[in-house]
């Protein structure tokens, strides 16, 4: 087996008042597509933020590309990571062209002489991934929410990251676009060996695309690989007693009626 791109060793995190994450361990190899599901407030976004180095765990450590993520090497390691967070401020204020937004994802952006024209091909390629190449010169403020989300995704992809961290990337997209997005992510894993961690609330939608699903609610309750199912008691301990499971696709992870065996 290859050396894992990402190895999380027993991390815990609290916000000072309450524990958000406890004893999380996880490894991810190149080309692996991991979906993380869990209820609101389960710590899904926090886990993504910890991996992106935005917050530091209280205990445990994170190895990125074989090196322990520290303050001094953070900038270098994160150059190989693509990151898309949940957007709270929906309406953009700054006058920006779409190509400039994508250009921001390139490491040379801080140099004032770097221009979208110089990197036209790379930007177009990233926009082509998300079907937005026609909007190269468009005003970012005039796009719809879904189109902006696709441009933001292109920004995360433009430097061809080895690890992609996505927090609810399908939130603003219609179901057809969601399917296209998942197919694109699958292709990136298979063809370019990108490792992906994607937080999503809709397990049915992602299950046929991902390699494994981790059920998170403060700690990882279960980690199911493709073809495995998630037992009923896991669902109940995550979402409460009132959940009713409906199996609608035998091939999908977690949807099949529970057989009772646990992976971890």
């Amino acid at each position, binding site marked *: 087996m290859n050396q894992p791109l990402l190895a999380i060793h027993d991390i815990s995190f609290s916000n000072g008042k309450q524990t958000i994450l406890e004893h999380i361990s996880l490894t991810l190899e190149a080309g692996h597509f991991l979906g993380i599901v869990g209820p609101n407030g389960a710590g899904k976004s926090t886990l993504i933020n910890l991996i992106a180095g935005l917050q530091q765990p209280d205990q445990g450590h994170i190895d990125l590309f074989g090196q322990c993520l520290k303050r001094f090497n953070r900038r270098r390691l994160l150059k190989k990571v693509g990151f898309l*967070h949940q957007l709270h401020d929906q309406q*953009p204020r*700054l*006058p*920006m062209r779409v190509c400039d937004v994508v250009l921001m994802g390139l490491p040379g952006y801080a140099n004032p002489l770097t221009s979208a024209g110089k990197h036209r091909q790379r930007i177009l390629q990233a926009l082509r991934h998300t079907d937005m190449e026609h909007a190269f010169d468009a005003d970012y403020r005039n796009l719809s929410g879904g189109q902006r989300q696709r441009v933001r995704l292109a920004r995360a992809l433009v430097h061809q990251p080895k690890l992609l961290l996505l927090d609810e990337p399908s939130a603003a997209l219609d179901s057809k676009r969601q399917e296209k997005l998942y197919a694109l992510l699958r292709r990136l894993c298979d063809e370019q060996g990108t490792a992906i961690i994607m937080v999503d609330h809709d397990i049915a939608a992602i299950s046929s695309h991902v390699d494994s699903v981790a059920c998170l609610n403060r700690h990882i309750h279960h980690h199911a690989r493709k073809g495995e199912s998630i037992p009923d008691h896991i669902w109940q301990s995550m979402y409460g007693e009132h959940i009713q499971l409906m199996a609608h696709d035998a091939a999908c992870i977690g949807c099949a009626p529970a057989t009772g065996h646990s992976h971890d």
Partner: protein
Amino acid sequence: MTDLFIHFFHSPVMMESLLPTLLIAVVTATMSVMVLAHRLSFLTVGVSHSSLAGLGLASLLGLPLLPSATGFAVLIALLLALMPQKKGISEDAGTGILFAGSMALGITLISTSTSQVNLFGLLFGSILTISATEQLWLWLLAAIILTSCLLACRSWWSIAFDATTAAANGLPVHGLRLLLYGIIGLTAILCVKLAGIILTAGLMILPASCAWLWGRSLSGLWLLSLLFSLLGSGIGLLTSYAMDWPAGPAIVLALCVLFIASWGISWLKNRVR
């Protein structure tokens, strides 16, 4: 009209103040883009007013005015950058408190000081009486501000657009914010000589506000802001000479007129479309 130009360019006082005014116009045009992008208009008001305490302190202790005021304004700006992190106080309340407090301290200190201070000049600007030392100080400050801007403008812009992603890309967001606040403090002091404590915020907000309706990218916005700023300063200085008005208020008024024109034309254009 031609006579006015000829007289203007033959007036030694005007020629002396023209270059510093244009220098300030370039600096404020540049910084106003960042002030608007980061929504720091109220900070510029707070920092420029708080420089009165620095000036008061300097006049009481007999220290050189501009360097002391510069140090004080930067200190206040950095305090404001750090304050919201200490929970329980919002940034605008913090700015309001420091603004009022330092203004009160400044007036008290100046009123008890024995040395003569031109309070009207401090409050509304006195570019026409600029000394050689002050000119040198202006050039030094402008060089620091423009160099920092050149090096950090893209990073600042990126943070204004999406601070979380900027941090995840490895940018030292906190350090860059501190630098921005400090540089805004320096810019405020640079403007005080021209527009005075009260009108400085006008110079630091209006140029980019005029350009905001038209710009489509950072560079386009900056060029337009520069154009409006130079135009406003030129018209203002000329009007102040023709009508015998104080220069700072005339420039701020000219910028206000440009803003209204820019806004009106943009509004009409949208209606026609």
